[in-house]
């Protein structure tokens, strides 16, 4: 599979000269499977340039996997060109809620006063589906979604094809209430999703000093994400969901700290940036 980052900024789109190297678009990642299927992880503002890049040659079926309904993960959906094409079969998967189905939770974003066009009038008539509780197949990939620690119903995803796994946990605070270095692995949120992943895209929004003042906000410190990657045996850690206030220079500082924290045997670590691609 081929993985491409279209947006890796957290919380709020942050364009400008200080974020130009890593990008200001909010979360969106594509996974092109070997059988031609297109999976899209989250629909932050990064999905808008993706739609433009796909042009008229987009696949007839597109599956979008939403981790949760915070604005920075769904705000681009309305500006994703293929949703306006009636010939597209668009499936939107999202976190199950104990109370309301996914469609009714997303519908307010497609209605006045937030948007002029009602969801029922979107030409592609997207199907909204709760992510199943057990692994399911789409094209040549096996998909697993599990609830993870973040305010409100939130899932992370694991996409596996030909023995290689991509783990995507863009908003995740596994250290909340747990000592990641000592707690048994089965008690770590997100552990099963990330276990042995070839690539782990993981929340790394805060420095340790910032995190100490934002415990419970649903995001991770550099220290915690490095520990999480170590505990799960992920081979390549990609720091994701950059804080909107962090400049390119500050992100380089976070990467330097992550490299410093790595122990022998840990995998590689790098910063997510728009345009970054991996072949798994």
């Amino acid at each position, binding site marked *: 599979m081929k993985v491409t980052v279209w947006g890796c900024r957290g919380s709020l789109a942050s364009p400008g000269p200080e974020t130009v190297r890593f990008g200001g678009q909010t979360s969106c990642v594509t996974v092109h499977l070997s059988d031609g299927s297109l999976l899209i992880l989250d629909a932050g503002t990064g999905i808008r340039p993706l739609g433009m890049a796909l042009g008229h040659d987009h696949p007839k079926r597109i599956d979008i996997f939403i981790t949760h309904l915070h604005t920075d993960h769904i705000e681009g959906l309305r500006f994703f060109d293929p949703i306006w094409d009636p010939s597209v079969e668009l499936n939107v998967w999202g976190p199950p809620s104990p109370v309301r189905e996914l469609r009714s939770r997303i519908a307010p974003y497609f209605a006045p006063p937030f948007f002029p066009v009602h969801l029922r009038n979107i030409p592609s008539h997207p199907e909204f589906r709760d992510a199943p509780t057990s692994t399911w197949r789409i094209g040549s990939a096996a998909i697993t979604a599990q609830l993870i620690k973040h305010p409100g119903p939130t899932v992370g995803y694991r996409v596996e094809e030909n023995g290689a796994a991509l783990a995507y946990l863009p908003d995740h605070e596994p250290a909340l209430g747990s000592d990641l270095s000592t707690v048994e692995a089965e*008690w770590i949120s997100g*552990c099963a*999703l990330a276990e042995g992943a070839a690539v782990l895209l993981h929340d790394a929004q805060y420095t340790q000093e910032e995190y100490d003042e934002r415990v419970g906000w649903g995001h991770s410190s550099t220290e915690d994400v490095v520990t999480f990657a170590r505990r799960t045996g992920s081979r390549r850690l990609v720091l994701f969901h950059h804080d909107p206030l962090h400049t390119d220079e500050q992100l380089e500082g976070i990467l330097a700290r992550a490299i410093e924290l790595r122990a022998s045997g840990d995998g590689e670590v790098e910063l997510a940036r728009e345009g970054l691609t991996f072949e798994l």
Partner: protein
Amino acid sequence: MCPLGVTACWQGIRGPGAPGVRVVEMRLKAIVIRFALLGSRPYRRLMTEAHAQRNLILILARDLASRLATPVFVVDHEGTLVYFNEAAEPVLGGTYAETGELRAGEWATEWTPTDDEGRSIPLEDLPLGVAFREGRASHLPFRIVGGDGVARAIEATAFPLLIRQGEIVGAIAVFWERPAEETAKR
């Protein structure tokens, strides 16, 4: 109907005819069958292998319990004891590190639960048993003998952890020791 199904569970138990009762009753039957199989080792092995990681609700429940001064007992979707907190240790007369995981059939006898007249209380009538069997909260005063051999009068309130209508991922019991004179009555 309560979106969580809890209201329906209550209605299903208290009287037929409520909307959705039949569906909830069927789900509860499945839970009862699962609960009846708790002692079956092959069944337990199968379920354990299918869950490499604890359900997030159980992780959050343990995180919360580990910070409370109130004794708390957490069981998973099979009824297996997966955690009790430090506050529970003086009441149960031992630590979770010593006890470890116990299947429902094991923990139900580990502390020899009896009523105030000394009659043994079966698993299905303990608050956690009721929470699983009927999908509702349950409360009961009873007696136990701790791991330290000391008899204690306690009260427990248990409730199921439902993540969706009729879908139980575990249950929690909160308990406390009754006044010393109640322990002495026996």
